[in-house]
């Protein structure tokens, strides 16, 4: 079961690289988060006794990352009317290719060694790590401020899965802190996209380089 969800999780991340349409990316992000929350729920149930910590995390993910954040992003996207992405800094084809390479790199090159060190048998870990890299690369390849917040949430999803895979989740207080961070980050980004658009009439962050002294 976790394998299927992890597959969905990874594919959503990869597909995002191919998407030019912003709204589609938001949907993919929601799907990825839903898969994550599913994994958390599943791990919570799968043990000999129900882990309430996992359940809570799953619920929180569902609430924040599947429902609240995508809605917020969606509404902002509608308001600033961005259906299509501004020009990418790296073309779509190459970026997909690089994405696949990154996944391969984690699977083949990095994880086998790390796995031995951290004694983790699950396959969730490589998925998580490659999602972190994918998210980071997503941010690098997109010039729109809007897509960068999507990228950072994707990275965070990867980190979250990392924590789930390796230690069974972080302490609750830290999780809550991260969620709060993300929410604030999304709101700030939302406001910023609005402002950037108001100022430069585009969402292209290239314009920001003019602010340099």
């Amino acid at each position, binding site marked *: 079961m976790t394998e299927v969800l992890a597959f969905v999780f990874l594919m959503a991340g990869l597909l995002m690289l191919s998407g030019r349409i912003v709204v589609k990316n938001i949907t993919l992000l929601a799907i990825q988060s839903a898969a994550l929350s599913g994994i958390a729920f599943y791990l919570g149930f799968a043990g000999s006794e129900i882990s309430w910590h996992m359940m809570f995390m799953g619920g929180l993910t569902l609430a924040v990352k599947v429902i609240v954040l995508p809605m917020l992003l969606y509404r902002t996207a509608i308001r600033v009317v961005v259906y299509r992405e501004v020009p990418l800094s790296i073309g779509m084809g190459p970026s997909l290719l690089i994405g696949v390479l990154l996944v391969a790199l984690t699977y083949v090159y990095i994880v086998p060694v790390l796995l031995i060190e951290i004694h983790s048998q699950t396959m969730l870990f490589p998925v998580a790590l490659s999602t972190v890299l994918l998210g980071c690369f997503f941010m690098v390849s997109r010039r729109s401020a809007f897509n960068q917040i999507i990228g950072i949430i994707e990275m965070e999803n990867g980190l979250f899965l990392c924590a789930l895979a390796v230690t069974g989740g972080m302490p609750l207080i830290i999780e809550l802190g991260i969620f709060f961070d993300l929410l604030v980050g999304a709101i700030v980004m939302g406001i910023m996209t609005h402002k950037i658009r108001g100022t430069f009439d585009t969402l292209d962050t290239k314009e920001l380089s*003019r602010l340099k002294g």
Partner: protein
Amino acid sequence: MAGLQEKLLFIALILYLSGAVLPLMFRRSTSMSLLLGCCPGVAAGALGLALGLWGMLYPDPLVINLGYILPGVELGILIDRLAGFFLATISMIAALASLYSIGYMKMYVKENLAWWSFCYNLFVLSMSLVVIVNNTVVFLIFWELMTLASYFLVTFEYRHQQVRKAGFGYIVMTHLGTVFIISAFFILSGGGDWGFADLAARSESLSATTKSLVFACALIGFGTKAGVVPLHLWLPSAHPAAPSNVSAVMSGVMLKTAIYGMIRVIIDLLGPGPAWWGGLVLAVGIVSAIVGVLYALMEHDLKRLLAFHSVENIGIILMGLGAGMIFYSWSMPVPAAIAVAAGLFHVLNHAIFKSLLFLGAGSVYYATRTRDIEELGGLIHKMPQTAVLFLVGAVSISAIPPFNGFASEYQIYQSLLALSLAKVSGFWSAAGVLACAALALTGALAAACFVKAFGVSFLARPRSQKAAGASEAPPVMRIGMAPLAVLCLALGLIPQVVMNSLLGVAAQIVPGPDLPPLPGAFNLSLALLLAVIIAALAGLANLPGGRARRTETWGCGIVTDASMEYTAASFSQPVRRVYRFILQPKREVSTDYSLLPYFNYRMHFEERIKSVIRDFLYKPLREFTIALSKKWRCIQCGNINLYLGYIFVTLIILLVWVR
């Protein structure tokens, strides 16, 4: 009994916190928030004084755990003798400054006094905690809190651009210092445990080079906060920028937390090191003392002058500590303990007389609204009691018997001489006597400076309307200063009592055989002798017919006025000229004349000194940094994607590297 001390500490903490928070609740009424901010400070200071004395005089350290602030990091209190001494000093000065503030801060009714109370109480609280925690992490937390709170106090009058600039310099310099302190702790702990006890245990296994690295980091880090030359640049601008009561606390005791850090890390944790450590500390002390007092002599801003004297006195303290470290490295614990105790004695004395002087300067500012001594004069008639209090401070800081400055400098002289008399090598013998000569030079310059400061601002005629309209400061301010003046005299009369308890403190840091108590010092008998002689002479002077008749000052036949008085600039001119190799004065004289050069009607004279350290040390450093930054700027293109790319590439490299 420990329960009682725990309660005392707890009450003191609550009092400080309520002093910080309550004024915020009552900020509508300025007088209310001022009272609510200052009164708990006075009470908490008294409690802290009791607790500190307790810790200082009883051999068993007091250990209290106030709970965990981070997983694995406890807020542990350890009041051993050293901590007790510093806690007592800080609390005493803070309590009196709080009392003084009730009167002084009335000057700022239009400002946000609640905010001031908040920062002030937090500042004092963090200072008290810095010296009594037992863990480096908590130490750093309160160290930073102390810096931040004092930053906001320095920038209290933020509307003046100069104040903002001073605050900026302060925060930048002290944070650079903190970098070094953190490095010292990191090297010392090696990423392991952070408690002082753990570090002390670990330091024994470190190599000599590592230890020297820790020593250098600690000296630079704490030296920045203490304001040793050449890291003192922030000090003379930050201290005057703050309100005077805050300057008194900053100069009197905040600098001492850095001395505490030095003693704790260098002497206590690292243990005996090579002799050059002590030699370096001694040399830094000498340079700070002389440079500090020379620049002080050139200042006409009363508070800047006092701030430079802090540099000087920190130098004198370091001379004592340096001598102690040299003895420690020679495995001579008894003279080492005496030298460290001498340094600590000067810590206490400087705290007392420097706070007294800053509070006095505050009263002058309160009465005249100017800090420029060229505008003052004649205040001894307008503010007779403040004048006496300020004079006591001035005499004490000039190391004049029978006051406390002399008592501690005497002990430092003896320690430096002991360095010579130990006959370890010709070099150290000569060095000891030369250090004594440097101390004598410092003392003479300090005396010159305070003859200027007191003479120009309190004596003769008022030089401006501001000084002419002055009146005595409110009683609560004088009451805040009076105990300090009494202490100046008392510690000067019975120094052996203080020195003997300080020897206990020093013996804790420099373990050795039991110290013999110091012989009863001569100060009391000397003072008695002086008093008797002067009283007898006074009797003689007041014999019948001895009443002084008063007339105008003789001015070669013309009626003198204030413009003919010697100014501070002219007073310091000979010194400026004699020590020009350090001060580098530049003089500009221009005359305007209409007909012939002999009948000029306007003359412009300007003389300014160069800050050699700023010009020859900081300026090249700054220019180098800027040039380097310009070169590096090419990687800063301003494109977010590129920055993200940097992060991305770093991430990949790290992952591959981890493998």
